[in-house]
């Protein structure tokens, strides 16, 4: 993959990568940093990219790896919601959803974000995280159930 193709891909995917990172990390600067690190990694490894892989799987896997590693470093008590000054949420619904998402375990949260940001199928999600399709289904169902419970209880 040459540099120009990579730049075009980065332009095309940056928004979606950022959305996934933001919902995982809950902080704009961290999300941008995660996108930066994931794209840097892919850029360095672009020579080894194999076309038998979907580009989206390749990019999302790199991003997922970066986000998950970033979450490992945080203390369990660190809140997911914006910790610094930023635009306020667009309504109480969004705030409730953000809080509900905090209660979802990391792996399920990642699958939820990938599923809803880019509409990845179960099979694609399984390829991104190196897990079975059935695990994807159970994790997604678990994540959705937690969010639904949190929203109903709110």
């Amino acid at each position, binding site marked *: 993959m040459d540099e120009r193709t990579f730049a075009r891909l980065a332009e095309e995917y940056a928004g979606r990568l*950022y*959305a996934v990172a933001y919902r995982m990390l809950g902080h704009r600067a961290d999300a941008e940093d995660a996108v930066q690190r994931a794209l840097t990694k892919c850029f360095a490894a672009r020579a080894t990219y194999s076309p038998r892989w979907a580009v989206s799987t390749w990019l999302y896997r790199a991003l997922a790896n970066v986000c998950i590693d970033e979450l490992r470093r945080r203390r369990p008590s660190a809140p997911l919601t914006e910790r610094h000054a930023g635009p306020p949420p667009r309504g109480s619904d969004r705030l409730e959803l953000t809080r509900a998402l905090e209660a979802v375990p990391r792996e399920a949260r990642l699958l939820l974000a990938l599923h809803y940001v880019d509409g990845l199928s179960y099979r694609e999600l399984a390829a991104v995280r190196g897990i079975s399709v059935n695990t994807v289904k159970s994790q997604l169902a678990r994540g959705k159930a937690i969010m639904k419970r949190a929203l109903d209880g709110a």
Partner: protein
Amino acid sequence: MNELDTTLKDFFTPAAPPRLARRVLGRLTAAPDLSSLIARFAIEATDRGVRRLAYGRGHDDATRGGRRHLERAREELVEYLGGRRTFFTVPIDLELPAFQAKVLAAADRVPFGEVTSYAELARRIGHPRAARAVGNALGANPVPIFLPCHRIVRGDGTWGHYAFGAALKTRLLALERATPALVGSATTRVVCRHGCPHEQRIAEANRIVFASVADAAGVGYRPCRHCRPVAEGC
């Protein structure tokens, strides 16, 4: 599509800051790799393990029985500086005053990629008012990096002093920040600590990073029996 799906789809709609891709592409840089610094380190080893690590001065020195420890220490150090290792297995041979031994043992428990403050470390060893003494004990660490005193920073967020210089402390912390600690293989579904021989054989395309062993187990990965990743990342 039910109501929850619609709500979630709307919630997850991408809204990236303007010109994000252009900004990111303009900053593409290689991952930090400090392995070229290896020539500046000098290691001393005895029959029982590594006794001293010096930077910028001195020469390697080992007793007859300590040569294997020296070679292993150098190998592991190169891998660490190149971002290919997150833990050390080479034995350490130290005879230290009880307080300093306690401080260094506590520093060794700070996980790879994380930092803590002098005051917090003092609290952890049961001497909450001894932050300065903790700093002195860390400053006299005979084997920096192997016992990671660089992960202890000042409470105000600045890095503070380091036996090998503040610049190297910054570079080591940046290196650790860019290196994942737990890596799974998508083909074998085994999760290893980064640096385990089994982990080093995982192809780039099959690497899956996990935040904890529990997360990995939750999606069907088992911990490696060789490097036994239990405490790390939990």
